[in-house]
């Protein structure tokens, strides 16, 4: 009888451990965002707000959902494409609409190219994409508001550190 009790205790222990299993939800991470900070071209150590900044992904009809639209900002986090190795954005300073709906701000196009690295995080998350060998190009013109771009970190694995500095 005593041994049956030991067995029952063992059974309860198994049920107990089995029910402590974690739920399969993703808490381990995410596909990172690209973090850009805006610096003053005259004083490259100090942050400088871009007035009424609007960020639109090239080919998209809506503005990037992680950036407050038409606000003065010195730091933005934007998503890169996970299905191709490059992503272009239209960065508009002094963004405003004319009466006919046309954009009156200064539009600069910036292109990021990178390698995509797949990473399996956990059962709940599955695969995320990390980016490596980040490079940027921007269309140069006479009235560019962007003067220079500097890649601080070419590896994008986290959304909490700055990867790119833009001087204006």
């Amino acid at each position, binding site marked *: 009888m005593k*041994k*049956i009790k*030991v*067995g029952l205790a*063992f*059974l309860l*222990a*198994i049920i107990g*451990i*089995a029910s402590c*299993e*974690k739920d*399969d939800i*993703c808490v381990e991470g*995410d*596909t990172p*965002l690209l973090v850009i900070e805006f610096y003053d071209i005259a004083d490259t150590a100090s942050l400088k707000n871009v007035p009424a900044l609007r960020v639109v*992904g090239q080919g*998209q009809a809506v503005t*990037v*959902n*992680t950036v407050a639209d038409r606000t003065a900002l010195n730091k933005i986090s934007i*998503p*890169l*494409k*996970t*299905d191709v190795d490059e*992503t272009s954005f239209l960065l508009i300073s002094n963004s405003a609409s004319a009466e006919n709906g046309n954009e009156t701000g200064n539009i600069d196009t910036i292109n990021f190219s990178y390698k*995509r690295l*797949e990473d*399996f*995080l*956990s*059962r*709940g*998350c*599955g*695969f*995320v*994409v990390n980016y490596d060998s980040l490079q940027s190009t921007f269309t140069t013109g006479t009235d560019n508001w962007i003067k220079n771009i500097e890649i601080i970190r070419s590896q994008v694995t986290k959304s909490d550190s700055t990867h790119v500095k833009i001087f204006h």
Partner: protein
Amino acid sequence: MSRFFISLSFFLIGFWAFCQSEPIDLNPKDTVVYQQSYGLRLGVDISRPITSFLDDNYTGFEIVADYRLNQKLYIAAELGNEKKTRQEDLYNFTTSGSYLKVGVNKNTYANWYGEKNLIYIGGRLAFSTFQNTLNDYQYFNTNRYWSPTDFTNGTGNVPENFSGLSATWLEAVFGTNVELFSNVYMGASIRLGLILAQKEDERFPNLWIPGFNKVTNDSRFGVGFNYSISYFLPLYKKKNQIEKKIEISTEGEN
């Protein structure tokens, strides 16, 4: 005349005692010894074929066996093959492979006369070799700016095979074997596994192991069970060894 016979009877009654070659034992010892059956029990798991029939994403079978060593101890083993496809939120994979578990069972059930049942606790060392196939997957991304309708598909989207995987684990078993009718047993057991070592691919870890079941994040434990029908093949009989009982007097103690 009758007096003669009665006298003779009284006289002859004395010879009774002399005719007896041995003194009469009024408490004869029982010479009929109950012999316990020893042999090999072979069977199959019935839950796995039933699950295979009901679940399109699973096929499997398991053979179970045990061999009686002594009064309480049995050598036990399970041999099986399983194939399972799991659909997670953003990926789908198939694991297939074989496993072998070897260990002992200790019967803790005190059978009544003629009973041959088991309620046992046991341990196993288990080993499995298997392969994983990542059938398809999508990238997890909480930002849906570039793909508002669905997650983007993983590169290529062709099934990717990871072979040569293996795992070794310890298993604690609690189970029972009940004789339904002569030499035919029905068994059930639950198992708690603890992974000792496993070989997994860096790109895609082992999420399910044949014989072990689901592998949980950051945990080396797993649970399993089986239900079996088995046949006991009696090979020889041996009587029980009498356990020496030491009686401890509790009198005089408070």
